[in-house]
């Protein structure tokens, strides 16, 4: 009876050892394939390793899975906003980190996650500059921040936020200013520039661009007016355009306060006051503009 019991126990230990050795073999195989730059072949092997009970808590296995998926992602999904490969890789790397690997692995994982974050930032740029897709660029920017904060929880994103929203503001205000039918671009530009000013009230470029959007919106109302516009409607149009001209004033005045020789601010103030039928102030700023031009 005692012998039988011993045989059973040894058999179990042997089976477990065989299984563990098998998983180690698979891990080694996946590592070889990865090193041989064949991540596609390594993928199913490492998947089976991390699923197995014996190795599912091995940080090395999860880290290797993250690297393998990263190599495939680089080839096919680098420019995609949504990528299952990227998601699986990041998830694997995060699991590996939670299982407390050694310092060298931890460091490499952090670098790779930062690399993913920078990948999102590249996508932000592409979405903005190539396709002017604000919503998708905003999603990419959010993902960039989420990933970056996973490896550097103390990172201050203020400058990045200013950089991103300034880029959005410039891009969309340019589009609106160059084509008055694109009022939705003007609205996106306004929201983005407001965000910049909220973060950095003295940001000259944001103040000027926001002021110009409001001014141009006022001009659009008048430009789009038909010659047959009845007098009572003309009154309403003037009311609305004057409101927009007045909304542009504080932003231009802010720039003027910060930099009294700023040519853009002086030119803007001249134009805005002219649109507001305030010829005295328009002439005053025109004089200041000419003086500033001479001084430069």
């Amino acid at each position, binding site marked *: 009876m005692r012998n039988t019991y011993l045989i059973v126990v040894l058999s179990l230990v042997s089976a477990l050892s065989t299984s563990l050795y098998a998983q180690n073999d698979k891990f080694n195989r996946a590592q070889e394939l990865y090193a041989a730059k064949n991540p596609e072949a390594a993928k199913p092997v490492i998947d089976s390793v991390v699923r197995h009970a014996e190795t599912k808590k091995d940080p090395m296995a999860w880290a290797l899975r993250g690297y393998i998926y990263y190599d495939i992602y680089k080839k096919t999904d680098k420019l995609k906003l949504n990528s299952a490969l990227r998601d699986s890789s990041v998830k694997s790397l995060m699991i590996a980190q939670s299982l407390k690997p050694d310092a060298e692995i931890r460091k*490499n994982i952090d*670098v*790779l996650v*930062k*690399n993913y974050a*920078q990948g999102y*930032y*590249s996508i*932000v*740029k592409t979405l*903005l*500059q190539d396709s002017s897709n604000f919503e998708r660029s905003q999603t990419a920017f959010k993902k960039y921040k989420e990933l970056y904060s996973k490896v550097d929880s103390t990172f201050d994103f203020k400058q990045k936020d200013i*950089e*991103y929203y*300034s*880029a959005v503001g*410039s*891009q969309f*205000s*340019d589009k609106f*200013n*160059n084509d*008055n039918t694109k009022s939705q671009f003007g609205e996106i530009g306004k929201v983005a520039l407001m965000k910049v000013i909220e973060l950095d009230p003295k940001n000259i*470029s944001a103040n*000027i*661009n926001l002021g*110009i959007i409001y*001014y*141009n919106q*006022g*001009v*659009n109302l*008048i*430009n789009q*007016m038909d*010659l*047959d*516009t*009845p*007098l*009572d409607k*003309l*009154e309403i149009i*003037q*009311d609305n*355009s*004057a409101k927009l*001209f*007045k909304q542009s004033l504080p932003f231009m005045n802010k720039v003027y306060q910060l930099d009294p020789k700023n040519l*853009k601010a002086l*030119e*803007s103030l001249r*134009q805005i006051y*002219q*649109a*507001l*039928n*305030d010829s005295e102030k328009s002439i005053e700023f025109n004089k200041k503009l000419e003086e500033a031009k001479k001084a430069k």
Partner: protein
Amino acid sequence: MFKYVIVFVVIASGFSFRDNVDTNAKIKAVFLYNFTRYFEWPDAKKSGNFQIQVVGTNANLIKELNEVAIKKQVGNQKIELINTPIFDGSKPPHMLFLLPDASKALPDAITKLKGKGTLIISEKEGAAKTGSAINFVVIDNKQKFEYSKNSAVKAGLKTSEDFKSLAIAVD
């Protein structure tokens, strides 16, 4: 092991006004064209071109009014825009607009054009009380106009009561 590159999103900052648009000129052009709807000119002036004479300098307004002349008519009459530096009164137009730099000519215009079917328009403080039928003024940053029905009647024009309600009436 992995190298990453920081990619800055740098886009040229935009600065573009709407082609230095003179909104006041556009608004005045719409006003002037509107005025043609509220008056009836004497029979003698119902044939030939409808003449709008602008005295003084305002290139942007002239440009806008040229657009009006190209695109619009007054009844069956084509609009003819005449821009002169001074007023001589030799040929009474349907509408005479004395720009601020020509407002000194107002008394002369009132005298020479009395009863000749010319709507006199000015842009000078108090002008509606001294013989101009319509005078542009700025109130609360907006372009408005004063109206003297008496002056319009003296000029030989039939007027609409609706018009008075849209204006700042001076009599």
